């Protein structure tokens, strides 16, 4: 299985003027295609910073980061935007759907920025919505959908560009237990179909679903041994 994501010696220092905060102190991480990885850590551990760097929302202060065969640590903002658009799908804790747009148009959004033709855009968004079981809710606005349904729309939005990696930041943090199970089941299905998924969470029942859990504490990765072999695939 080929390597999708590899980090070595990644450091991130926030310069807040008087004090320098070292959020990441040398991260080495490798994720293969088809992996389902949970990143766990308490608040202040550097978990969010790591997620931002994995998601190409921020660049490391030092170190190398290669995603899907491309060195992304030194890219410009515009180039990063393209990497996010082509290779990544985001699922946020608070869904981050645009309230004025229908589910359909929310899902189409990444394709709009990819320059996909409207007719193809519509068709792909419909397929993604059907994939998450919301084929019948295309014309609903986020306000007309339940929390679980909204998160499904955002999973559809993450899927629609057929990205190399789905990055979920506390995807169940705002959901009740039923919706949580729903979304986690959906992730399982997607992973079984071959999707690479990285979930950032502090909930153990979420992390348990992953094949592998990575712990981050004080800017270091610790205890990366907790591997759960799944589907007969050695990690």
């Amino acid at each position: 299985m080929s390597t999708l994501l590899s980090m070595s010696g990644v450091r991130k220092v926030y310069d807040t003027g008087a004090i320098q905060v070292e959020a990441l102190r040398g991260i080495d991480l490798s994720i293969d295609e088809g992996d389902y990885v949970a990143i766990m850590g308490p608040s202040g551990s550097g978990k969010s910073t790591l997620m931002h760097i994995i998601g190409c929302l921020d660049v490391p202060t030092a170190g190398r980061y290669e995603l899907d065969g491309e060195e992304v640590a030194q890219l410009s903002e515009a180039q990063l935007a393209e990497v996010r658009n082509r290779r990544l799908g985001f699922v946020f804790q608070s869904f981050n759907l645009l309230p004025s747009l229908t589910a359909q148009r929310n899902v189409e959004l990444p394709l709009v920025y990819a320059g996909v033709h409207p007719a193809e855009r519509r068709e792909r968004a419909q397929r993604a919505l059907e994939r998450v079981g919301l084929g019948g809710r295309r014309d609903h606005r986020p306000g007309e959908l339940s929390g679980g349904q909204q998160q499904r729309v955002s999973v559809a939005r993450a899927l629609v560009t057929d990205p190399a990696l789905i990055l979920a930041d506390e995807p169940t943090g705002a959901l009740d237990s039923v919706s949580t199970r729903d979304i986690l089941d959906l992730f399982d299905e997607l992973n079984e179909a071959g999707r690479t998924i990285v979930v950032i969470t502090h909930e153990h029942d979420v992390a348990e679903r992953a094949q592998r859990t990575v712990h981050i504490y004080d800017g270091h990765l610790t205890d990366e041994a907790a591997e759960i072999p799944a589907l007969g695939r050695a990690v």
Partner: protein
Amino acid sequence: MEWRETVRTAIDALNARRLRSALTMLGILIGISAVMLTVGLGQGAGSSISDQIGSLGSTTLTVSPGQTSSGGFRGASQTTTLTTRDAEMLADPTVTPSVVGVAATSSTMGSLQSSETTWTSTVVGTTPAWLTVRGREVGTGRFFTEDELNSSANVAVVGSETASELFSTGSAVGQQVLVNDQPFTIIGVLAEAGSSLGGSDDDTVVVPSTTFAERLSTSGSATSVSTIYLQAADDDSLSAAYQEVKTALLSAHQVTEEDADFTVSTQTALVEAASSISSILTLLLGGIAAISLLVGGIGVMNIMLVSVSERVREIGLRKALGATPRVIRRQFLVEAGILGLTGGALGVGLGYAVAAILSPAIGITVAISATVTLLALAVSLAIGLIAGVYPATRAAKLAPIDALRSE
């Protein structure tokens, strides 16, 4: 990201904040319609002034008694320093070769009495040359002749307005009218001339100067005249005629230029003075209108800044999903441009509507040309875009994580 999508997204965003967008557009709307109306008024006044140049005749010179400061308007003077002798001298081609026509006029207010009604009008005593020198035409009937002038005939030619006031039904030609209790026969009605800077030219009674001197004059002197109108051969000889007339009169009256007892003026000088006043007014009003447009532009910038800080999360999300800084900047520029252009288009509409109502109400044509309309639209779009540059740049510079973080 294609333009169509950008425009659609911008319209959606403006639609989501309808009241605010409308109020922002109002600033541009008022500014644009104000500018259009001022420019329209200026152009309307300009064209009515140039119409008057035509109607007055740009080759006409006017000699009036008394002295005025140069360039100023003057009222009717009571001094009587001009005489029929002056007029005869000025008609002599050896004295004033550039002058082709001379008409001396005396005038007084006359009370008119027809079989139907009474009316008050200006009564002018002059010579048959008056018609061509003043650039007038007879509508019905005829003008008086040299014979009638020499025989002091009691004949009168009246303006179209006077005719219709005196004789509401039927033709005035051939009718009798009492002018200051003197009986006159109306032999002609002048064609309409419209109103000029001096008031209506259609309310007047023209009689032979001899008859006027004998029967109507109140000045006491039979030979004094109130104004001498002269016609230069053509536009080019106007200034030559001006000099000839001035020199001839100065030597005839034996005065120097400093204490001249007459004033020679050309119609174009009057019209130029009027034009310059109207263009100063246009400039002044246009300046005020431009300031209101500037304020409208600041309003657009203000609201776009508010919009950017309100939509930090949306901007962050769009960036996370692949929008480049360039795309975000364009998004907000297009929004600001649409605010400006829509406000401008509505302003143009309002401008046309107000012009349509105002023109008949104030009697001045408000001429809004297609060029002005297109210019107004271009300006409103430009204002929106310029006002949008700073907010759009700020939006483009937002870091996606900072944007997503703000809850």
